[in-house]
């Protein structure tokens, strides 16, 4: 069957894409002046030594005297064998720093993703079923609100109201509570809510518009003529075809928000996740760590796009694998 081959081809392609991105990263890095080398030169000059000699020594130490292709293969091997170097600012291996940050990022990203995937299509289809009624207008209004308001700004407002004034949630994220505890759920409510309002708008809009088309399709009349109840007709005959175009929007929205807004939200709520890690690494000019988080986000994006492609193909039976 063509499906296995299709998936294999897609995975290989994703590998190529990630390699291209890693290569570009390497080229940018090698073109930029290395801060360590500069520092060594400055240090040597200040202490009356020979800057050129010091530079040479550091370059040797860092392997920078090797030809470009050797360094390139070393770098690529490092990336793919998960040897991502040492983070100066955190005094731990980069991979470890990324791993522990991911632990916190996952705690709000997983509920947020699940809520978006479940609520977005449901509300969208409900909206379409009640098109132009007040329910539809309310849902659409909410969608536009979430879509339009910047997430970090909305986060700050909610933090001000619920954290500072009402004191329902701690102003600063508390890492001491257990993952599966009421305290943790409470302190994650607002960040999750902010992100859901951000991601759900587009998902709702696409599901509403696509399902509006399907709910008036001829096959809905066939379903009714077969004795299918309205609920079943929506669940099977409208929802299912809507998922095809929706899968693209869904993955796209989640990725965009994950790579963009969630970082800001982490900074606002002081969640020690990947966003804050990146932010701090930038401030501290910790090159290895910046590189590590960048690579991580790159891989998430590549894998996300891969999933989107595969899901789309699985969902639409009309797509022939041979054509793609």
């Amino acid at each position, binding site marked *: 069957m063509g499906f296995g081959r299709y998936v294999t081809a897609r995975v290989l392609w994703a590998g190529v894409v990630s390699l291209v991105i890693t290569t570009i990263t390497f080229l940018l890095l090698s073109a930029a002046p290395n801060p360590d080398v500069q520092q060594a030169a400055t240090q040597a000059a200040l202490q009356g030594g020979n800057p050129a000699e010091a530079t040479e020594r550091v370059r040797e130490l860092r392997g920078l005297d090797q030809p470009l292709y050797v360094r390139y293969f070393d770098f690529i091997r490092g990336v793919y064998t998960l040897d991502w170097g040492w983070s100066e600012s955190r005094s731990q291996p980069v991979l470890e720093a990324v791993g522990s940050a991911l632990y916190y990022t996952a705690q709000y990203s997983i509920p947020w993703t699940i809520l978006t995937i479940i609520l977005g299509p449901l509300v969208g289809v409900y909206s379409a079923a009640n098109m132009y009624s007040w329910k539809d207008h309310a849902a659409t209004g909410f969608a536009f609100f979430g879509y339009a308001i910047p997430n970090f700004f909305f986060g700050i407002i909610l933090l001000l109201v619920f954290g500072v004034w009402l004191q329902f949630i701690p102003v600063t994220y508390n890492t001491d509570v257990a993952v599966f505890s009421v305290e943790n759920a409470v302190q994650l409510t607002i960040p999750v809510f902010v992100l859901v309002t951000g991601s759900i708008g587009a998902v709702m809009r696409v599901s509403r518009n696509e399902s509006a088309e399907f709910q008036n*399709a*001829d*096959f809905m009349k*066939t*379903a009714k*003529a*077969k*004795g299918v109840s309205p609920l079943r007709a929506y669940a099977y005959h409208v929802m299912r075809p809507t998922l*095809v175009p929706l899968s693209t929007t869904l993955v796209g929205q989640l990725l965009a928000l994950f790579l963009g807004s969630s970082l800001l939200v982490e900074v606002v709520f002081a969640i020690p996740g990947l966003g804050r890690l990146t932010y701090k690494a930038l401030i501290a000019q910790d090159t290895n760590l910046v590189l590590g988080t960048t690579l991580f986000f790159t891989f998430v994006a590549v894998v996300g796009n891969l999933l989107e492609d595969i899901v789309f193909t699985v969902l639409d039976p009309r797509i022939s694998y041979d054509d793609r």
Partner: protein
Amino acid sequence: MTSDDQPLLEVEDLTTTFSTDDGTLTAVDGIDFDVETGETVCIVGESGSGKTVATESITKIIKTPPGHIEGTVRYKGRDLLSLPESELRQIRGNEIAHIFQNPQEAMNHCYTVGWQITEALQIHRDVSDEEARAKAVDLMDRVGIANASSRFDDYPHEFSGGQKQRVMIAMALVGDPDLLIADEPTTALDVTVQAQILRLLDDLQDEFDMGVLFVTHDLGVVAEIADRIVVMYAGKVMERGDVLDIFDRPAHPYTQQLLECLPEFGGTGGGIPGTLPDPHDPPDGCRFAPRCEYAEEACRTGEQPEEVEVAPDQQVSCVHYGPGGNPSIVRSEGHGPGDGATGGDSEVGPADD
């Protein structure tokens, strides 16, 4: 078979209106007809005459609102229009099944044909997946789909237009319906396939002992399959009765004109000059008056003329047959070929859309 000579389906004074932005649109305006078990009744008329709406009003599959249905539809003596929706659902796809014009659109492209055929069965009966599958494969085989058991898991796009309509027929028959409503089931298909599908429906009707209500604008098709016909124009019934009688001696000017368009009767296969009246604002009197060559003053006032029985089982709605009318005005010119030309192997419709 129904008991006590009760028709399988009795439609009385069926009226279907739609509320639109431009006011109320009357698509079907007080029509009557019957369908007996084992017979095929054709509703004939130009597109826009209300024939589709009439058939979709029977089990209320049109959307209400904006649609609004009144009158009586008795199926085996039960008034369908007064049944609650949940009971109607039990009848739809189970006792009364539908086939639609465009099989391409009438199927959901996301599900296999097998899933779609068995859906009605799974809803209405307590059957296992295996039983449902066996029944569907059997039906697919019966409607002429080769390798039915392997094609059960194929998607609609993997079938040709004619095969899709065969699948739709299998889908309709899965609940062993007593009444099959077929709305222009061959219009979207090419000519050779049309003939095959008509033959198939004819065979299946005998096999399943169903009443068939068949909607078409194509009198060639009517000649092939109908036992009785109902000629509709602008939401009203113009004439109804036995197909042989009507093809032999069409009484209504509209029926006469429809038949005259047929190539067998010397027509060009074109349509009748003029257009249907605006359904928002139908003319007074006879709906056909603006296009009728025999229209008189009496035709343009009051209501559509009362139906008059001009022969056993042949009703006509035209003033010339009514009290004080003179049928010879309409009939004198020797309309209708009178040679029983019901062989009708034409595929050309008189009023194509």
